[in-house]
C-alpha cells in the first residue's frame, strides 16, 4: 500500500497552505467578530482556482482529485472554519450538484461563473420541520403553464445572503424535486439570519418562497429525483467537512502548543506537566488516525468505492476528534481558554457545528448500525 501523496498533491498542499495562512488565517478573528468573510476573500480564492477546484477544466475548474480537495479543505479548516464552510457549501454542495444533475445548458451557464466566484452557490434543502428527515419537506412546487410555482420556507441556508444561485428542494406532483433559482427572482426573499454559537462568518439564513416562479428548464433532474440528487450531493460535502475538521483540529493543537510552551506556572512551562502532556499525546493520536481516515476516504471517493458506512465513519469520527481536541486545548489554556482573546475559544465554538452540519452524529450512527445489522435481524 502506498500512503504517500504524489508530488503534485504535495505542491497543491503547499500552495493551499501558503494561501490559507497568508490570506485567510490572519482574518479569522475579524471573520468571527464581523460575522462575515473579509471583502474580496472569495475573489482571491477564485484567482487561485480554489472555488472551482473540483470542476472539470472545460468549466474553468482545476479538475482536482478528492485527495487534493481534502488537502484544500484541511488547509481552509486550519485557517478558518467559517471560510471552509462557506467554500464547501458553494463548491462541494452547490457547484458539484449542478455538474452531477444539471443539463449541459445548466453547466455551461452556471459553472464557469461559480468557478470564478462571480456567482456563489447555496443549497436549500433543510426546512424548519425537515432537518435529518428530508422526506418531511413541505415546500411545494405546483405546475403552472411551462413551469412551477414554489411556495414555502427553507432554513439553515449557508451563504443565504451572498448567494447568486440557490438549489431549492420542493415537493412537485412527481415527488421531491430540485430547482435552480437565481438570486433576485420574484418571490424569493432572504429571511432572518441565524444567530449562531460558532461559524459566525457563515451567513446562514432562512429563505421565503412566496409564489416563486421557476421555468421547467430550471428544474434540476427529473421530477421526484430530488432526494436522490441530495443523497448524491451529501458525500461530496461530508468528505469536505471531515477534511476541514482535520485541519481545525490541527489548528487547535497548535494553539494549545504555543500556549503550553509559553505559559509558566510553578516556575516551569506547563507543557512539562504530565497532565498537560497527556492531553497532547491523546490529541496527536486522534489527529493522526483522523488524517489517515480522511485521506483513505478521499482515495475511496477517487476510486469510486466509498460506501455510506465509510462516509458515516469519517464524518462521525472527524466531528468527535475536532470537538475533543478543541475541548482539551481550551482546558490547556486554563481560564484564558474561556476568553475570546484567544483563538482556541473561537475554534471551540466553531467545531461544535461539525456534529450537526452535513448530517448529525446520530444520523451517522444510525446509518452505521443499520448497515452493520443489515440482513441479520429477521422479523
Amino acid at each position, binding site marked *: 500500500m502506498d500512503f504517500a501523496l504524489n*508530488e*503534485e498533491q504535495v*505542491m497543491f498542499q503547499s500552495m493551499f497552505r501558503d*494561501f490559507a495562512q497568508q490570506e485567510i488565517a490572519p482574518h479569522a478573528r475579524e471573520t468571527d467578530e464581523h460575522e462575515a468573510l473579509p471583502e474580496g476573500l472569495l475573489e482571491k480564492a477564485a*484567482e487561485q482556482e480554489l472555488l472551482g477546484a473540483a470542476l472539470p*477544466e472545460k468549466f474553468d475548474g482545476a*479538475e*482536482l482529485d478528492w485527495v487534493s480537495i481534502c488537502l484544500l479543505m484541511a488547509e481552509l479548516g486550519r485557517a478558518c472554519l467559517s471560510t471552509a464552510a462557506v467554500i464547501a457549501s458553494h463548491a462541494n454542495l452547490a457547484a458539484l450538484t449542478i455538474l452531477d444533475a444539471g443539463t449541459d445548458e445548466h453547466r455551461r451557464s452556471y459553472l464557469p461563473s461559480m468557478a470564478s466566484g462571480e456567482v456563489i452557490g447555496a443549497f436549500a434543502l433543510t426546512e424548519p420541520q425537515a432537518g435529518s428527515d428530508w422526506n418531511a419537506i413541505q415546500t411545494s412546487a405546483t405546475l403552472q403553464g411551462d413551469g412551477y410555482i414554489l411556495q414555502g420556507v427553507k432554513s439553515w441556508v449557508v451563504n443565504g445572503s451572498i448567494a447568486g444561485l440557490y438549489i431549492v428542494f420542493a415537493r412537485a406532483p412527481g415527488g421531491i424535486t430540485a430547482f435552480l433559482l437565481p438570486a433576485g427572482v420574484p418571490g424569493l426573499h432572504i429571511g432572518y439570519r441565524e444567530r449562531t454559537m460558532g461559524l459566525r462568518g457563515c451567513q446562514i439564513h432562512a429563505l421565503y418562497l412566496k409564489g416563486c416562479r421557476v421555468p421547467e428548464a430550471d428544474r434540476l433532474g427529473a421530477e421526484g429525483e430530488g432526494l436522490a440528487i441530495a443523497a448524491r450531493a451529501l458525500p461530496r460535502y461530508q468528505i469536505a467537512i471531515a477534511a476541514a475538521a482535520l485541519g481545525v483540529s490541527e489548528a487547535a493543537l497548535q494553539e494549545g502548543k504555543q500556549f503550553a510552551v509559553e505559559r509558566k506556572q510553578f516556575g516551569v512551562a506547563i507543557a512539562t506537566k504530565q497532565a498537560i502532556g497527556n492531553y497532547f499525546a491523546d490529541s496527536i493520536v486522534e489527529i493522526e488516525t483522523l488524517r489517515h481516515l480522511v485521506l483513505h476516504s478521499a482515495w475511496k471517493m477517487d476510486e469510486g468505492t466509498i460506501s455510506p458506512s465509510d462516509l458515516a465513519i469519517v464524518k462521525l469520527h472527524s466531528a468527535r476528534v475536532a470537538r475533543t481536541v478543541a475541548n482539551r486545548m481550551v482546558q490547556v489554556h486554563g481560564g484564558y481558554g474561556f476568553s475570546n482573546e484567544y483563538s482556541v475559544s473561537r475554534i471551540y465554538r466553531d467545531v461544535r457545528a461539525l456534529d450537526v452540519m452535513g448530517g448529525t452524529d446520530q444520523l451517522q450512527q444510525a446509518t452505521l448500525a443499520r448497515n452493520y445489522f443489515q440482513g441479520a435481524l429477521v422479523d
Partner: protein
Amino acid sequence: MRIIVLINQILDPSGMTVNRRAQQVFVNRREYILNPADLSAVEAALQVRDAAGGDVTIVGLGPERVVESIRQALSMGADQGLAIIDESGAAADPAVRARLLAAAVRKAGPFDLVLTGDRVLDSDGGQIGPRVAELLDLPQLISVETVACQENRAEAIRSTETGYQRVEAPLPVLATLPPDANRPRFGTAQRIVNVYRDQSAVKCLSPADLDPTGEASSPQTRSGGRGYPTPREPGTRLEGTVEEITGRLVTALGLGA
C-alpha cells in the same frame, strides 16, 4: 525581454529548532522550500515580463529535489525551467555554485535580465549574485526592492537606512532582491496541474554538461567547523531626562572634559 531567475532550495527553517545551549540545530521536519529571497526574484521577474512581455526561465542548482522548487516557480507563471542536478554537494561552495550558474545562464541563451535573491536564508552569504555578475561581466544592482526595464535600461529602487536610492544600468544586467521586496503570488491550481502534465517543462542537465573538464567544480572554500557566536554581554540602559542621558553617555564614552 528574456529574463533568467537563479534559484536555490533550502531546508524549511520553520521545521528546525535552534538550541544555543546544545550548540546544535535540530531538524524536526525535513521539508524544503524555495529560498525566500529567490521567491522575491521570481515575483519581480514575472512583474517585468507581465509589463514588458517576453519570457522567464528558472535555473535551479542542487540535488534532484530542486526540480520541485523550479516547478513551484512555474506554477506561479514562469515559462520554463532548467535544473542542474548536482548530487555531489560540490555546489555548496559559493565559487563553484556561481561558476556553474554562470555557465547555465550562458547555456540558456541570450538574455536581458538575470535576477536572484540577495542572500540564501541558510548560509546568508550574499555571494552568488555578485559572483555570477562578475563571471558574466554584467553590471549588478544589488539588494533592490523593485526592478523595471525600459528601452534597454533597467531601473531599480534600493531601500537604505536613510531613504531610497534609484539606480540604473544598461541591459543586460543582473539584479538581486531581498526576501521582503514584494509579495510573491501563489501558484494556481490549474498551473500546478499543467506543470506536472508537461514533463518537458523542466530540462535537466548535470554539472558535467556545463563544465566538462571539472575545473569549475573544484571548491575554493574549506569548512573549518561550525559554532555559535559568543553571546554578547547585555548593554547598559541609560535612564533619565534627555539632558541626563546625554551627560551619562558622554561620560560612559569617555568623552567628558
